[in-house]
């Protein structure tokens, strides 16, 4: 029984990896000329995964998660533009570190309250980060964006080219690594602790654990993931703009997460891909009505698929399997 369970877990991991690879492959084949867009989706997927860690796994409602992503983006960008650290792996490391640090700061603030005040705290922090980046314009380029980032070839072999193949490949690899690590995290003792905190923090406290400490730690991890996404963004775009730590991006990430379904890595990935494809399609078809359509989509999700698309479909399948 036990052995069977653990092999099943490992095999679902393998399925996950296979699905990501297959999706990346299909994307590559179907849109060979759109790799920059696909890379952008991957960077955002990392942001949404990171958001899922705190919102989906720990139950923290935040509209300020782009602060972590932007911190990673700017750290990677500043490293390249001001310190001549142009190796993409080192830039990614810079992004991860800065994201984790930003995660710690945001976490310590946001976790001070719950409910609506928590939401407002998260908004206030992302605005503070935004203002800070705007103020430090000699470092960040302010609203003109931070340009002058030119990553050196990956591993000294693969240059970042016009077609964006290197950036795409790097993004897919990064996503896979993060995905596997997060799967491990999700079933680690710490992952279990966080699930418990989400359901009943009071109960967890009487078992001897401190929710605040655990959640702050999760925020740091989440920051590292978002920072990796931000670094990917800086590497592939070679310009970092203030939008990368905006309230708008935070809200969009939340929308993507809930669209896919919270509390599952697959939900986060599904949501990001669907939202981006939807956005790409609708904004090309009729930019004028794009906002109305997104609004209608959100309302429809809340009414008809409250667990998100992935969540609702997997529930449905589980029910069917149950009755069959």
């Amino acid at each position, binding site marked *: 029984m036990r052995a069977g369970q653990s092999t099943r877990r490992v095999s679902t991991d393998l399925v996950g990896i296979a699905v990501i690879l297959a999706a990346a492959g299909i994307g590559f084949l179907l849109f060979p000329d759109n790799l920059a867009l696909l890379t952008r989706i991957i960077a955002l997927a990392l942001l949404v995964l990171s958001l899922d860690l705190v919102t989906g796994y720990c139950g923290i409602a935040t509209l300020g998660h782009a602060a972590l992503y932007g911190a990673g983006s700017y750290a990677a960008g500043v490293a390249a533009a001001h310190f001549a650290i142009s190796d993409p792996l080192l830039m990614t490391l810079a992004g991860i570190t800065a994201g984790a640090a930003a995660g710690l700061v945001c976490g310590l603030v946001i976790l001070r309250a719950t409910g609506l005040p928590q939401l407002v705290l998260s908004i206030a922090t992302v605005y503070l980060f935004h203002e800070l980046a705007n103020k430090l*314009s000699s470092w960040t380029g*302010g609203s003109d964006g931070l340009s002058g980032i030119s990553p050196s070839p990956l591993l000294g072999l693969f240059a970042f*080219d016009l077609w964006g193949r290197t950036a795409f490949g790097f993004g897919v690899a990064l996503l896979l690594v993060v995905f596997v690590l997060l799967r491990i995290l999700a079933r680690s003792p710490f992952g279990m602790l966080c699930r418990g905190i989400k359901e009943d923090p009071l109960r967890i406290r009487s078992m001897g654990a401190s929710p605040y400490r655990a959640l702050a730690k999760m925020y740091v991890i989440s920051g590292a993931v978002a920072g990796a996404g931000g670094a990917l963004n800086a590497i592939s775009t070679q*310009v970092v703009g203030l939008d990368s730590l905006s309230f708008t991006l935070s809200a969009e990430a939340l929308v993507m997460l809930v669209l896919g379904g919270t509390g599952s890595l697959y939900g986060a990935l599904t949501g990001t891909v669907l939202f981006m494809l939807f956005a790409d399609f609708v904004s090309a078809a009729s930019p004028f009505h794009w906002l109305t359509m997104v609004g209608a989509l959100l309302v429809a999700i809340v009414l008809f698929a409250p667990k998100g698309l992935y969540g609702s479909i997997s529930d449905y399948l589980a029910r069917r399997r149950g009755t069959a």
Partner: protein
Amino acid sequence: MKRLVLAVLAAAAFQGAALADTVKIGVIGPFSGPFALQGKNFKAGIDAYMAMHGTAIGDDTVEIIYRDVPKADPAQSKALAQELVVKEGVQYLAGFYFTPDAMAAAPLLEQANVPMVIMNAATSAIVTKSPLVVRTSFTIWQTVTPTAQVAFEDGTRKIITVVSDYAPGHDAEKAFQAGFEKAGGTIVEQLRLPMATNDFSPIMQRIKDSGAEGLFVFLPSGPPTLGFVKAYNENGLNKAGIKFYAPGDLTQESDLPALGDAALGLRTTFHYSIAHDSSENTAFVAAARKAIGNPAELSFPSVGAFDGMHVIYKMIEATGGEADAQKAVDAVKGLSWASPRGPVSIDAESRHITQNIYLREVSKAEDGSYINKELRTFEKQGDPGLAAAK
């Protein structure tokens, strides 16, 4: 699956075949979101040009492909620029309302062999990011520098500058300061306001307390403009004789109906007024108004787009529709023509547009609508911003 791949390949092949006699131009701008009006003006300018000059150049047919970047979002801009180049096979990239969006796409140009024609983004440095960038709009330095001269010649000696705290605001602050101090005036104080400022009364108080004889202001168009101008009147600054100087972003035509009488008499300097008196402009305005639908929505980005199309048409003529970015750009260096805004030319060295800057005053036209009436012309202004950055 196999069939799918085949279909994709077939589509790609078909596109390749179609390329022979169609020249595609990819236009990136804000076509949705809070800045959609500016994107609409891009489209109106482009449509007006094509309505007046046709879509055929020699054997080639021009086709425009629009891509939407609703807000300053370099990552999206780059992704779309890349898609336009690689997938759609565009020979020209154009548009770009925001500076970071243009900056993000600029590194692609050489490898893609594609020139970029900037129809709005107004930070001086963009043209230095790639030798394939040409700009047909303006820079903040270009439109602001004459303001300083106007202020000084008015007899105003002490000025307070008030700008929004973002890159264009900083540019405006520096440009005005440079011009005004060079003329011999004094900047008594420099205020930078957060972008999201709703209530300008405390700022007005601060201006009064500064002892300045005049104020220079630069704000993004839209709600802040309205709030600022109202606060200026309500707090009695105009009655107190504190003079008002600003570049024309503040009195763009699409904001004038909302500003109403409050704006009457405000003088701004800019590269284009819809009320410019010339036959080229009359024709342009007629075509652009038809293209945009609601005449009240027409504003300055349309003329940047219109002239941008002129430059691109000349490039296509010069290259015979073949993809040769360097040749195309070389062909328009030094090009001069009669634009709706007046005589203009492309500076051969900077690839930025040399144009007249006008001092205008908001007045009521005979039909009761509000216009920017031109009072004075500063001829053949280049971009002082590039020199200042050096």
